[in-house]
């Protein structure tokens, strides 16, 4: 692929690789959207954007395109929105294989279909060699928060129950394995997937849901700490209840990493009032993305609000927000 100024070759590339996949009927440079849902009294528009720079670009369970769609869909989802439309912008390093771009675009279309959203506008730039690392993708998303729906971390109260929808750390471990330079064999696939259908099922079964957070960068630990700080309440989790694959634990032991800080791309944590916990759990488990769902802990009054994990061996460990990367703290 050659770096060009925007001539015919470029237009052909865009048409051939992207627009024909996202909207076969044709895509204009500007999406014109009219939607009856927005006209409902009290409904609100949700709008988010994110850039994706994952390496390697393709890994077991997904690629950068799938992450770009799922990431933005899930960002909208955990805010209580029903995602509807996405934009996608590509920064492509000169010399990138067109076949790779086709695979990425196809993955984006599949993910969008799975989530029930449309990619309605976009942009493409090809830059000189070295100016980008093969491919960067930016997606923005628009969704609608139905009237009366209000998810916020500040709403979490002592006694509320914390649930996750599935196994933790798969994405982070899969990326580490796929980078290849770590030389270990592990049958781990990224958990990358849209969570909007799961979220709708939970909200229907447990309308009291207080809040949800996707446990992406910084893992479950960071998501819980954000909620604890926003709500000024403590959170207790049980190590024994955390759904995690033995392979992921093994990789973490080997590399000396804490799985609670590993990134996920298809995991969320949410808080519901205690009496709705079982209903929320059952609703999660009824969906594809929630088969391994589990109750992992609860919010609790604490002298200084923070996240504490009751470990398998009886102690209670503070799980804090990292300032930087994982560095040994031990003397």
């Amino acid at each position: 692929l050659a770096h060009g100024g925007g001539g015919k070759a470029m237009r052909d590339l865009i048409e051939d690789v992207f627009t024909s996949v996202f909207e076969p009927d044709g895509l204009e440079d500007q999406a014109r959207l009219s939607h009856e849902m927005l006209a409902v009294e009290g409904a609100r528009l949700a709008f988010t954007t994110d850039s994706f720079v994952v390496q390697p670009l393709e890994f077991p369970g997904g690629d950068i395109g799938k992450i770009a769609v799922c990431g933005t869909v899930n960002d909208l989802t955990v805010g209580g929105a029903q995602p509807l439309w996405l934009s996608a912008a590509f920064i492509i390093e000169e010399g990138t294989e067109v076949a790779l771009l086709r695979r990425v675009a196809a993955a984006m279309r599949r993910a969008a279909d799975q989530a029930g959203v449309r990619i309605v506008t976009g942009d493409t730039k090809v830059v000189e060699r070295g100016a980008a690392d093969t491919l960067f993708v930016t997606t923005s998303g628009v969704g609608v928060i139905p009237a009366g729906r209000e998810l916020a971390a500040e709403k979490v109260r002592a006694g509320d129950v914390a649930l996750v929808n599935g196994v933790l750390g798969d994405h982070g471990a899969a990326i580490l394995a796929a980078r290849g330079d770590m030389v270990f064999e592990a049958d781990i696939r990224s958990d990358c997937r849209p969570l909007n259908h799961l979220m709708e099922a939970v909200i229907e079964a447990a309308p009291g849901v207080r809040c949800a957070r996707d446990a992406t960068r910084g893992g479950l630990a960071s998501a819980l700490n954000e909620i604890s700080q926003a709500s000024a309440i403590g959170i207790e989790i049980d190590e024994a209840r955390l759904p995690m694959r033995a392979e992921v634990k093994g990789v973490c032991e080997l590399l000396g990493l804490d799985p609670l800080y590993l990134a996920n791309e298809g995991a969320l944590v949410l808080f519901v009032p205690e009496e709705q916990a079982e209903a929320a759990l059952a609703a999660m488990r009824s969906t594809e993305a929630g088969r391994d769902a589990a109750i992992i802990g609860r919010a609790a009054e604490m002298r200084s609000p923070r996240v504490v994990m009751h470990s398998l061996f009886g102690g209670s460990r503070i799980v804090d927000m990292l300032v930087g990367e994982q560095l040994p703290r031990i003397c």
Partner: protein
Amino acid sequence: MESGAVTGERLLVRGQVQGVGFRPTVWRVARELELTGDVRNTSSGVEIRLWGEAVSRFESELRAALPALARIDAIERVAIDAVRPESFVIGASEGDGMRGAVTPDAAICSACLEEVRDPFERRYRYPFTNCTECGPRFSIIETGPYDRARTTMRGFAMCPECGEQYSDPTDRRFHAQPIACHVCGPRAWIERLGPGTVNHEAFSMMDDVDAAGGMLMNGHIVAIKGLGGFHLACDATRAEVVADLRMRKRRRGKAFALMARDLDVICRYAEFSEQEAELLASPEAPIVLLRASGEPLPEAVAPGLDRIGFMLPHTPLHHLLLRRMKRPVVMTSGNLSGRPQCTTNEQARAELEGIAEFALMHDRHIANRIDDSVARVDLGRVRLLRRARGYAPRAIDLPTGFPRDISILAMGAELKNSFCLVRDGEAVLSQHMGDLEDAATEDDVRRNLDLYTQLYDHQPAAIAVDAHPEYLSTKHGREIADGRPVIAVQHHHAHIAACLAENGRSLDAAPVLGIALDGLGLGDDGTIWGGEFLICDYRGYRRAGMLKPVALPGGTAAIREPWRNAYAHLMAQMGWAEFAMNFADLPLFARLSAMPRSTIDAMIASGTNSPLSSSCGRLFDAAAAICGLAWDRQEYEGQAAMLLEAAIDPAALNEPDDLAYPFSIPLLGGRGLPYVEPLAVWRAMLGDLLLNTPVGVMSARFHRGLARSVVAMAQRLTADDGPDTVALSGGCFQNATLFRLVHEGLEQLGLNVLSHSRVPANDGGLALGQAAVAMAHLHE
């Protein structure tokens, strides 16, 4: 001059002079010298007014008669003119008394012990007997100032007889806040943990404390509520019971402390010097690490170690408990491994149920958890390894040159946390609290910080923290700073500063060579330090040398698993091909071959979670793993290094010098700093393995080689116009052999050597150094 006025003298005394029987002593001395006047507590100490001929003799007589727990820092004397009173009286306290007048808990004194043993005394067999010279202090205080109403004794109304003693200046118990007796004080009782009841009929001839002693003798595990927390106790000579306690407590490797009735019992199992005997019997009554000798104890008491931690009973309850016991008992902290010890009866019932069958409870609430202190005597001085009961919160005077008007709070380290308050030129180092990642320990830190802040009316101008941004203590410091400056202090600079401060090195003294042999601390170059030679004073430091930086493959995993350090060191030296070519016959080769080497190689090559570290602790881990003493997992911090030291064959320490493993000191490429290079050490060590050299000999050669190289480095860095003083700090100096060899080597070079005594060399002393460095910065 008013009519009838006579010239007298007023003395203002500062120091540890309240709540320790100081005023009755003043009263007695004044009466003996036929002086009249008065004495009272004030907010800054004690004020004494004296009239009479012998006034000039008063101060020296008072100093000679000082009660055991009192300490005079300064006496200011001025002449006064007033009407001379007829007699000498003890006056009422002025205001709330002195801030920071809290003294450490003290072991029962001999006078009280005699009473407890005397059937004709009213406190015969009373487990909570105390006086102004002994008993609980810090552990029972809820808020300051120290006064019965603000301690956990507040619920016990004094009986008339105790009340009389309390208000009689001639009595040992004058103003003894925790005064109590059978009639009015706390009680002890035994209960069964878990289902079932205790059959009291069976013990009808005894009291409950004695019954608990009987249970220990019969092989039961009993939870005992002590001064600063619960212990778990059992007969230390029954291997199966000790092993059972280990299993139930889920504490696998770490040594248990023992308590014995008296020195005669201890000397059957361990040897001790006169100085060690004195330390055991001191009011601080720490656990003292003694060399095992004589009758062997079960291996499960202190697996792999050559030293046993012994303590003597420090409360009447413990004396009564062990009265009939001719054998030592295990006296380990009452908790599940990794947690702080229980302090309340409810906690003990809930947490210790699966561990102990019975509990000896009492109803004097423990306000402040405080562990047993641990000490050792090396090179003729007491060395505190863990500073808690008996020592904390005694203040440490800052050296000359430090301002008296700056208040600082230093947050300490992540492990073995202890914080430090500086005010009025004194440093108050809190008791050892433990590892912050444990939520209950961190809660304790926050509670204690509130308590100390209130007791000392402390308003710090700045907060000192470790430079490691992820330490929970650092985060906590930033969280409470509230606009005040936060001063980040490099870990090993703080270690050395702590050593300088406790040795009274003045603020403006010339720089020293600081040698910090340690586990890990964040360096200022983004790598992890831990074997550092710093030219430094309080204000700053220059890194002048180090141990060779080697990768820590897996970060924290490399701390848990010694084999990772062995592998990283061997690969940094010779690579796999050379190792395989020369040493394929070693079991070590087979063991390392079985490990996931390619991943570790890749981690080191790409720097993935494999920071470079010049740690001395990890060097010890590597050596212990190569010797086969530690491999998969350390059960407790420093285990590999402790096993390696304990393995030393003392005879091998006297081998010819050239058998010590040869470290060299080349210059590091780029920066040009000299470093201690273990290349030839590993070759020699692996060669010794091929020759089936005993581990005890290899360990001796390793220790001697390392000590020689540290001394050689010091010689180089102090040559010409270099410092004439060397300060030793860091956790590795708790290795007595390394400490002694380095210390002796440096003294032979004619260097002045400073080392730790009252403050631990490990991270437990770090906060003092942080505070001193921060003071120096603010003073600029």
